């Protein structure tokens, strides 16, 4: 039986809130990593605030990125870091979180520069190709699979037809990797068995909806 996450289960709405709720005393990397791993998704704000300025400066000076591109890539880097943590691709920190974010962000800037045919100033300390380059773990396969805007729109439209609470249940289980008991608590279902049944039916419904898109 997968244990419940130790932290209090945040409401689904809080995942989409925009309030800047940085902790007054930023958590140390190990604590922040552990907290995100245990389900405190709202700490992504703190992660972003802590490292954003440094990355924007670095990306503009060293990687020839525009400010907008640098911010865009850093946002994607934070999201990629989060997904690596919850999916278990990143189980422990072998370097500072900033190093990890910079490595991912750098790779995304290179990608964006390539798309824009922008020449890149060689970054002698880029670390690209290093054996322990954490950006190697970034899964860009979804970006590559879904660069077709039309296909992305079809999937988005299909999901919009799914409705609640199915979208909430499936997102908590498959994206945020909540154990079934945490999904039950978040959605307010009576039991893990009922939650499992509801999840199964919601997934079947989504598959039927997408098949008709």
């Amino acid at each position, binding site marked *: 039986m997968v244990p419940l996450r130790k932290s209090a289960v945040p409401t689904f709405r809080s995942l989409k809130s925009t309030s800047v709720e940085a902790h007054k005393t930023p958590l140390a990397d190990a604590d922040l990593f552990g907290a995100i791993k245990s389900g405190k998704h709202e700490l992504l704000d703190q992660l972003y605030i802590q490292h954003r300025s440094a990355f924007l400066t670095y990306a503009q000076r060293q990687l020839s990125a525009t400010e907008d591109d640098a911010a865009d890539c850093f946002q*994607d880097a*934070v999201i990629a870091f989060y997904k690596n943590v919850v999916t278990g691709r990143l189980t422990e920190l072998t370097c500072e979180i900033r190093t990890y974010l910079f490595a991912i962000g750098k790779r995304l800037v290179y990608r964006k520069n390539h798309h824009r045919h922008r020449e890149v100033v060689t970054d002698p300390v880029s670390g690209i190709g290093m054996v322990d380059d954490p950006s190697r773990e970034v899964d860009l396969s979804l970006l590559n699979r879904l660069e077709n805007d039309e296909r992305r729109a079809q*999937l988005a439209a299909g999901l919009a037809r799914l409705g609640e609470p199915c*979208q909430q249940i499936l997102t908590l289980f*498959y994206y945020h990797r909540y154990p079934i008991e945490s999904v039950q608590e978040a959605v307010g279902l009576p*039991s893990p*068995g*009922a939650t*499992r049944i509801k999840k199964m039916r919601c997934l079947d419904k989504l598959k039927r909806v*997408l098949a008709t898109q």
Partner: protein
Amino acid sequence: MNQDDNNQRIDDYLLGRMKSGERSAFERSIDQDESLAEDIAASRMALDALELAEDQALKVRLQQLEAKLSGSSAPAATSTPAAPESATVVALPGRSRGRWLGVAAALLLMLLAGWFVVNGIGNRPEQLAMTYFEPFPNYATTNVRGDQTEDATMAAFNAYDAADFARAVELFRSLEATDVNRFYLAQSLFAAKEFTAAAPLFSDLAARADFALAPEAVYYAALTDLARGQTTEATKSLETISADPDHPFREQAAALLAELN
């Protein structure tokens, strides 16, 4: 392997939880089983859609945070991109095949039911109800292979999975009367032909808006009415079910109505 085990394996595969040996074996199964391959493809597309939407939601969250930090105006808080009005629908492989398999299954069911009618068996409502009854798959528990411990709930569901319905009835009656436990108790009672005992359970569960299997309970309540000779009530329920395009037992209800009419 029951349906819940199958769903668990698919989840483990898609979420990267399988060890490499197990993963390789499962991928060989996918190569050999077309319906499994279709299921995996459809599930993967569903997960892609979820990932896309939540990536976008987090992106919007961070964009709005960036806007506040940089002092510029916040971007529009759209969580998902709008679908184009004239999107080209890409035909997905296997979907029409799946639809025809469902129609073929319904036709086969009708033929089988017709055979029973010709042989004088299908005239009896109870026999007809039993013909259209199949115990609902166990989605409530996840069996752990090799697990020697078995609490009361697992014992009840194991008896159910083993089609030992008399034992399952006895065990479910000893459990807490949750909706899920009552649903599977009713299933076990029906399978053991204790229709009078099953009827109030299915009727109550069918009326519960917050119960995930309420639509299924409506169908089984109709079967229970039929088994007890209450053909008029059963027909009325089955007509409602067959008219609902989203009902999971729409095809079965339509086939049964054809028998009754």
